[in-house]
């Protein structure tokens, strides 16, 4: 892909996504209220995701068994990942395909707009912030935005909705795999060869949400966070 097209996608499609991926475009009032957005400063790069709303969404869409601490770890990991995301980045070459592939345009403006839209809609419908709405109510609001997504979770970067992105990011993590199997599998972490033949150890109680430790530990590289 020519550099000019790549630059164009980076700069312009992100703007389109911010408006089209949600029914509610960002507004100055909400950005001032949250104090997290830089929507009024077009030169400042992608708007950060409003932290309180993101956490209110996480409480509704991540497993309850994570607990508050584990959920906060998951959200923080997602934020770091989001901060490190490079739109229209060169992707790994598929096998025996001579063309170069690139990732999609920046999804973050759209996600930020969705979070703002959720707060606005929540106030309009329920007269309260999203964080103060019960989980069932939040899910009702989120379901409309999620729309026809699925059946798979897909990759977080390709998610059209922030709720799906958050879930996709968490459920792809080694933490989620260990939680599912209730075993210390520590997938894709540098674990040494010695432990491979053994059945993975039963996950210790109350470690949900904590990063898996490689058996040797020295080369553990946590996934899910931006490098």
């Amino acid at each position, binding site marked *: 892909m020519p550099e000019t097209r790549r630059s164009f996608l980076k700069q312009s499609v992100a703007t389109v996504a911010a408006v089209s991926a949600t029914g509610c475009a960002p507004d100055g009032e909400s950005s001032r209220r949250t104090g997290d957005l830089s929507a009024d400063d077009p030169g400042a790069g992608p708007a950060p995701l409003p932290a309180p709303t993101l956490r209110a969404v996480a409480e509704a869409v991540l497993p309850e068994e994570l607990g508050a601490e584990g959920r906060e770890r998951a959200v923080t990991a997602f934020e770091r990942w989001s901060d490190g995301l490079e739109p229209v980045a060169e992707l790994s070459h598929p096998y025996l395909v001579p063309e170069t592939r690139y990732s999609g345009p920046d999804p973050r403006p759209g996600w930020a707009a969705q979070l703002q839209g959720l707060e606005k809609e929540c106030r309009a419908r329920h007269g309260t912030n999203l964080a103060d709405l019960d989980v069932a109510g939040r899910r009702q609001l989120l379901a409309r935005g999620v729309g026809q997504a699925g059946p798979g979770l897909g990759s977080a970067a390709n998610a059209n909705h922030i709720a799906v992105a958050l879930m996709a990011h968490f459920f792809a993590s080694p933490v989620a795999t260990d939680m599912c199997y209730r075993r210390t599998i520590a997938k*894709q972490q540098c674990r040494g060869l010695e432990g491979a033949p053994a059945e993975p150890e039963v996950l210790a109680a109350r470690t949900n949400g904590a990063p898996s430790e490689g058996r*040797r530990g020295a*080369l553990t590289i946590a996934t899910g966070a931006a490098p």
Partner: protein
Amino acid sequence: MTRVIESDVCIIGAGITSAMVAERLAERTGASITIVEAGGRTASLAERTHTRARMLAYGENPYPNDHIPDQTGTGEMYRQMVVGGSAMHWGGAIPRYSPEDFRLQSLYGLGFDWPITFDDLEPYYQEAEERIGAAGEQGPPDCDPRSRPYPMPPLPLSYNLARMREWTDRAEVPFWTQPWARNTEPYRGRNVCQRCDTCAVCPTGAKYTPDFALDQLLTAGRIDLIPRTLVRRLALEPGTDRIAVAEAVNRDAPDEPVEFRAGTFVIAGGHAWSSHLLLLSANSRFPDGLANRTGNVGRYMTGHWFVSGYIDLPMRLYPGIFVNNSLLSHRFASPGPLDRYVRHDIRLWESDVGRAPRLRNGDGSLLWGDEIMADWRERTESGATARIRAYYDVLPDRDSRLTLDGTNTNVLGDPMPRIDYRPDPTTLDLEDHTHTTILGRFEHLARTAGGSIMSTRSSRLYEHPGGGCRMGDDPATSVVDRWGRTHDHENLFVVGAPTIVSSGCANGTLTFCALSLMSAEEIGKGFDRT
């Protein structure tokens, strides 16, 4: 002004076969060696921890600048053009071809015999395994012959693969650990595998990549490596058929031509770019391209196809323990006498297909956090998934071709390669029989486990490709002799993938390396031993 670089041996391309040739020549002769590479350098070992993390997080290419934007062909070919070649990205599977692969015509009355046998190549297989650092175990000797043990013990079977091998033992199909170019012991200054499970980019250096060997040769002062320099054509000595010069361009200074002058030239450009350079080098003496007096350059392009599937197993496994190890069987690649021809390998991996977390359940209902986890657990606790694949050989057709594509040129105006693969009609006649046989074996395995086939598919992607400069004793039907020397030019060799006659039922890289070492032995005869 033209820059002239002289050496005894000029190797064009800096991938794995180039590294093999250069290393052997450097060790055993006093020849001066220059390697020319069109691509540049990519992520060093020190940088791979970071690029690996970004690949995991974002799917990004862990090898930045590993290709040249305008150097792009059409058809199935690798994107990489970089110091280290496509073996920077490889997973490192290094099975040997089977003895039958070299004698298809004699044994089965179809395809072609190679001018060499498995036994001729066996010492070079061993040497390649030692240079690369192979970790493996021998299967049953009648279908996995070898004269000496692997240099390193195999990768350990994970808990998952050990359970799967118990199952395949019950099915009476012998499986053993896939041999890998990954260290299970410290080897040649490189680390032991740490089971990071991202072998496309290994952050520890346990996986062999050619840059390690090239860097050692550079440090020892045994080679000159000229990157970012594209060889555009080879030119003859006036009035002879000897190659005199490789004409190139420095990609950082396109107005400055570079000439490589050498006594011996070795094309190590892989399956696509080797034939391409010969065709580009046409002149009045060889109007159809160098080494192409009989019109065979770019022909008999080959690879193998596969049938794959997923098997539902009634056992508890834990996907993620070690995805990048697998079980391998060559039993059906060495089948003995056959009523009707079919040969293939089989390999098995752990998998989470059908058992990954999902946003909607079977009836399409949207799931949230705990519901996703519960749905996921239910599917992982009810059984496990095995991925299965069988590569089978495709007999190459003479019109399976690489040609120059005048509609697709690089910035210099040179036409790029176009590959139009075509199977021999016999392969098409046998295709249904092949698929039926393979699927029957998948079914047998599934039934033995008390499981079932979840899904299957077949692919006509020409995997592990080669050909285009195939070897042979008869110049009328081949481009190079058994040593890789072109029939038409006594000081020009082509090594590795382009020279294969057929592509067997297994990954090709080890065979390409072994063939290159065999060529290096012949090339080295022209020089004093050190």
